[in-house]
């Protein structure tokens, strides 16, 4: 569906035609809309999960631009709690 939308917008001749087409597009039913949201969500989450797999915390911070807000003591503790995951 996303692909269809993009194709149409690229190929369209006039903005009038596009407006009419978009109006039709907006009429898609709730059910399909929800499915669209979930599908996109699922795909994005799967991709993100794959990017996280097997990475160290520091690598994850870099990829997603996350600030490390642990104090030194907190960092040590959480690392100790989860040491089994770092074999």
């Amino acid at each position: 569906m996303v692909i269809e939308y993009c194709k149409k917008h690229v190929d369209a001749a006039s903005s009038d035609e596009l407006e009419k087409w978009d109006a039709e597009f907006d009429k898609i039913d709730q059910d399909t809309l929800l499915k669209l949201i979930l599908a996109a969500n699922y795909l994005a989450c799967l991709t993100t999960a794959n990017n996280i797999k097997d990475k160290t915390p520091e690598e994850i911070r870099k990829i997603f631009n996350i600030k490390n807000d642990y104090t030194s003591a907190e960092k040590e503790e959480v690392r100790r709690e989860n040491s089994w995951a770092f074999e």
Partner: protein
Amino acid sequence: MDLESVGDLAIHEIMENLKPEDIARISCVSNRFKSFTSDDSLWSKICFRELSLTQPIDHLGNPTPSFKEAYQTWREAFVMYPWSLVKRVKRCWDNIKTWLTNNFPEAKETLCEGASEVEIQELEDVLNVKLPLPTRILYRFHNGQEIEKHDHDTSTSDISLGIIGGYSFYDHFVNVYLLPISQVIQETQQISHNLGFLRRSKYVLVAASSTYREKLFFLNCTNGQLYVGTRNLLTNRDLMPCVPQNLISLHHEMDSEKIQDAMLLWLEEHGRRLQRGFIKLLEEGNAKSISLFPEESPVCSTAVTNGVQIRASALLVPEGVDLQGDREKYLFSYSIRMSLQPQGCVINGMSHSSCQLYWRHWIIRANDAVVSDVNGEAVIGMYPLLRPGDKEFVYQSCSPLPTSSGSIEGSFTFVPGRLVDPRGDPFLVQVAHFPLQLPDYIF
């Protein structure tokens, strides 16, 4: 825009696709991420999926405040082993323990709690061996069974609690249990005193009969195979392997779940047999034990003649095997179960409410050649009287064979009514052919 602002639905979806190790690592990223990973419903699913836990408990059975902590203690307790192999060993024990809970709780009570790394190390140091990995993990879950040795005839307890089970015929009674480490050490040393080759070749005694019968199972720490002592263990070092050799794999580059020694394979197979009813609990009055006589066709044959049902199956008696022998090399024991169906003993349209055995006839074959054709009165000196609704009359006997493969078939002569008051002519009841076969797994 950063990952933290994406929203809970997405975060949750991402977590569902991560391994527990990754989730644990994420909690080290930032405080916000730590709170994402603290959702206990996430860990509850992981605990159920990986460990079949429905309650948050640690590896010793103690409750923990959350599933997250439970999972953590499990991983920490077994951090020195490949986790996939730990899960496999747990499934093996769970399978056996579920059956015990449902059928033989008295035996389950005897299972000791897991050994510590220190205790396992002591065994290795004292006996100068390196236990294969799966066996180490097996002991970490349960350190054998707490069983009192007893002389079957004079014992006050009729319950034989070995979880491997056994059999009896004439005066030969065995019931095999798993030794706790303290006994493994003590008894291996004792036996190795007389049989030096056991020590040199890294054999440890892991299972034995609790009766004073010499049925001994040794784990070879070098090749990972389990061996059972035969009749000539002392005189000729004769042992038999208990598990198909080609299944043993002590190292696996790619997948540590596939590391399997004979002890693990043996217990997994035993658990499967119990679960599917291939072998069952035997109850005779107050006596209870796991009987190794097969209950499943075609290893167990069934035939009904005139309402009389005879079920029959055999097993190998390894401690009676004489590998140096000729005509009497392999010893088999067989169990015959007789009963009268509800309609009674029906002959020529007439129904009798009982019948009694008078005579037996056996044809014993080694491979396909008849080696024995015997006739005689009674069975083990008894003349069983069968009535509809009674429990099966069961008895055991034995037969040596020159080959590892053969069969027995035969017939019993019964009279309707009773021997002292026959209500008709004697009639033959068939015992359908059942195999005598060296098994792939020896228990």
